[in-house]
């Protein structure tokens, strides 16, 4: 393929698809604050893992319950 073919293709594509209207029409800061608050409220995954591990220990090793109560 030569440069002329490339130019023809470029022109054809540009006629069919115009550049996107990339102007921002609203302030996104309120959405940003919402995103930040959402994440602050979320419990981190390792807390869930810790909770799960503790529950498993209590189920499978019930002897741990007095020890746990003592430390609480």
């Amino acid at each position: 393929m030569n440069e002329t073919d490339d130019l023809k293709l470029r022109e054809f594509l540009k006629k069919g698809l115009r550049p996107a209207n990339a102007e921002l029409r609203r302030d996104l800061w309120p959405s940003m604050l919402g995103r930040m608050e959402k994440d602050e409220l979320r419990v981190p995954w390792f807390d869930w893992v810790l909770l799960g591990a503790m529950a498993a220990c209590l189920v499978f090793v019930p002897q741990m319950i007095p020890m746990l109560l003592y430390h609480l």
Partner: protein
Amino acid sequence: MELLERFAQGDRDAFEELFRQYQGEVFGWVMRIVRDRGIAEDLTVEAFWRMHRAHARFDPTRSFGAWARRIATNLALDQLRKMRREVPLVVDTADVARANPAIQRETREQIAAAFQGLAPKLRVVATLSLIEDVPHREIAEALGISEVAVRVRLSRAMKILREQLKEQVPGNERN
């Protein structure tokens, strides 16, 4: 203390100032890639959220704009992977309305479908270079690849597009 240094230290006011300063630029860049206003807004917020979380890794001697664009580009690429074969490229009604009336709707749809069929890493380069006229250097910086790699990807994308649209491109009928 400079704004970028305050941001790197986790100052929320500095983050807000940078957000207000760069939100339009980041949105515009993402919009050029995904071509959907709603998705571009969501990705802009998500990109800034990642920057906020990664503030400690930001080097205040470097350009915030380039860093922001790189993060936003990675998110937009992930989005293109999700959107592939799900959402047509031209979904913005304003985009359709602004399209060249001399080009048949069917042809526009074929062009959109041809772009949609490209692998995301080719599509992003093809869209930015062929439709948005973004210089190769800027595309390379945003994708974290060399300009040569941009030219290679563009060449591959054009080859696929030419093949897909060989019946429609004027002068290609002989092929």
